[in-house]
């Protein structure tokens, strides 16, 4: 009896962690190219509302997903243009993106609040995998988007640490001047990976509105975009660790609801505070750690690249 509750909690943890994971993977790519994009929350919301809107119109959640990815990418394009071409302050530009995205999504979504979505992403059973005791229900009884997120983790790891292009990406974030001289086009790389980050953020938002909830509510991301940004830091820009971190967060998020089963009665507001408090705590612990060890942020993160100023 006890075990099945834990399995249920961990399984919900995977689902709850998926949007954070997707957004974090996106932001990771962006930051590895040397650009800080704090607009994740805004991009997720725009992705969520666009995905919902298109899914509702076309009756097909996959079209919604595609639309969300495009929308996220377009939002990121604004940030890319401001920070890469116009060399604007990356922190403020990202904040502008969040504020604008939050506003835009609320504006577009006004008429969509509370509407039900007839066709959503449903869990898909994988032959063999879904039936493994314990791990099966936790990892393999979810919808396709979750499986896609697993693939993305593996793909990104392989790309970053085994492929030449991944090496080039990392060099752009560490020492853009060296990369430039090695013949790598720093601007193009940064544009590509900032937009890719936006696309993943859009996908993360779509997951919320098309699979997790599924519905549209203003501000439905509730800070998940920010948790994703923090997650990139604790995962030390490593996809595998991002997966573990998002799983941890997802589990903490859902733990609240299940607390009642254990007879622990905590006012719901404090449970809602938990993810934010834990994020702050972990961020402090991990930042302390990374300062002493050699693993740290990409050296050129947040600094605009200007070929003449050397």
């Amino acid at each position, binding site marked *: 009896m006890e075990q099945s509750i834990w399995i249920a909690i961990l399984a919900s943890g995977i689902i709850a962690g998926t949007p954070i994971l997707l957004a974090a993977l996106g932001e990771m790519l962006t930051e590895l190219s040397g650009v800080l994009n704090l607009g994740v929350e805004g991009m997720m919301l725009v992705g969520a509302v666009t995905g919902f809107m298109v899914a509702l119109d076309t009756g097909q959640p996959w079209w919604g997903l595609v639309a969300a990815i495009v929308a996220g990418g377009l939002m990121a394009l604004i940030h890319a243009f401001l920070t890469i071409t116009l060399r604007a302050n990356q922190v403020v530009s990202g904040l502008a993106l969040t504020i604008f995205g939050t506003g835009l999504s609320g504006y577009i979504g006004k008429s969509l609040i509370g509407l039900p979505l007839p066709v959503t992403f449903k869990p898909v059973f994988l032959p063999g995998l879904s039936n493994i005791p314990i791990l099966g229900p936790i990892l393999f009884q979810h919808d396709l988007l979750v499986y896609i997120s697993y693939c993305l983790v593996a793909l990104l790891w392989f790309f970053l640490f085994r*492929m030449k292009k991944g090496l080039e990406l990392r060099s752009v974030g*560490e020492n853009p001047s060296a990369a430039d001289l090695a013949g790598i086009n720093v601007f193009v790389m940064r544009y590509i990976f900032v937009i890719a980050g936006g696309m993943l953020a859009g996908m993360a938002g779509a997951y919320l509105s098309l699979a997790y909830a599924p519905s549209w509510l203003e501000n439905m991301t509730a800070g998940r975009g920010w948790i994703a940004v923090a997650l990139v830091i604790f995962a030390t820009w490593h996809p595998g660790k991002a997966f573990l971190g998002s799983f941890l967060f997802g589990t903490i998020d859902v733990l609240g609801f299940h607390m009642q089963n254990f007879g622990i009665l905590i006012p719901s507001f404090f449970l809602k505070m938990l993810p934010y408090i834990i994020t702050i705590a972990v961020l402090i612990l991990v930042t302390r750690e990374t300062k002493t060890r050699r693993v740290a942020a990409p050296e050129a993160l947040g600094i605009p690249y200007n*070929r003449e100023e050397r």
Partner: protein
Amino acid sequence: MSAIPMVEMVKVTKRFPGVVANDNVSLTIDAGQIHGLLGENGAGKSTLMSILTGLYRPDEGDIYIKGKKVDMLSPKDAVTQGIGMVHQHFKLVKSFTVAENVILGMKDMGVLYDKTKIQAQVERFCTQYGMCIDPAAKVWQLTVGEQQRVEIIKALFRGAEILILDEPTAVLTPQEAKDLYKTLRLMAGQGKAIIVISHKLSEVLEGTDMISVLRGGKPAGSTKTELASEQELTRWMVGRNVTTHMDRAANEPGEVVLELDKVSCLNNRGQLAVQQASIRIRAGEILGIAGVAGNGQTELAEVVAGLRSIESGTKHVGGVDHTFSGSRDMIRAGVSYVPEDRLGTGLVPGLNAVDNYILKSYAQKGWLINWQQAREETQDVISSYDIKMANLFNPVKMMSGGNLQKLLLAREINADPRLLVVVYPMRGLDVGAMAAVRKLLLAEREAGKAILLISEELDELFALSDCIAVLHRGEIMGVVHPRTVTVEEVGMMMAGKRMLEQHAV
């Protein structure tokens, strides 16, 4: 020696807003030749080489490689032409391995990177040129000399036939510099063309075959090295005869101003940067610290200035124990500090000259700042020290290196300190500015101040110091008198050989 020169730059001109960086410059480099490119800071050497490496396009003039005219639109074209460059500030990704740095950006290496191929190639360079390095080592773990080797390997890996080195010996000990030139000679022997950009006359006179001098963007003279003289080269570089000899009055040193007793401290990564260092400086005395950059000099200066805590040992200024004093107390104790990082630490780039002038003195007079007075004081200083700036209220980052240094020194000297700590003061300055700085330091010495001078230029240390201490891996290898020791002996100490007998100080 082939008849057709390897590189020919003909009547090259490059203009930037407000300045002609290269004016009708022609340069010929033969295969198998080590060619020295000499000139002051701002003479146009870097610009010329940037054109050769495809970073800039010339406004006028042509470039011929092996007799064929080439039009280079980007650094990639230069690489295709067989031109490779080793920059003064290495373009390496510190967190990557040597192998990863070498193959970064190479086109025909496939989608995944093949470590064995690189291994084989690197080993070949080892036997061919005596440049050995572990391909799996992370760059941040290597010494500066080794990092430079990686840069050279990078260029060779891309098939460089023409190798350009920008101030290569700035970060090497005298012995390492000799080794480097040996390697370059081997490469030249294999038919490569080598260009060395330098401002060090002695090095260029020793190691090159041909020398070309630039001054103010224009060609100032070219000669075979065996026919060149120091006087002639200096005249070409500066345009007039310059006396490099400074008259140093014999001084009676006064009482001890600074005393460090077995001081140790850590660097930013928590490792021991300075170990058991003991030095003593008297009033009216200049103590020079010699050593290759990265051996604890910065940390030592920071310890004296109160910016770094002391792990063990004691520090006394004017007889008073200041072992645990921070920067504010040291300023009050009469210690002035001209840091290595002029623009960033010593001066705030985004603030104007007035703000920067009162950077330390603002704390002296109560709650409010008297801007009127501050402006007047700054104005006085600018005229008396002959500092050139467009506008008193412009951010100082717009000022040139020499003027920045003068402003910094003016502020530190005007604070009337007991002890002046100066780190790499001549870096990046032209001959005129260097002479001015030297004069200022000697004047302070005459006025009875104690000076701690940290520098990489042995000539400068020998000319200015009363004593020289050599720092290697944070330890003082020996304290010597410049009159009774040779450059070679100091060079050996810099490389780690301790002095067997102390010359009487």
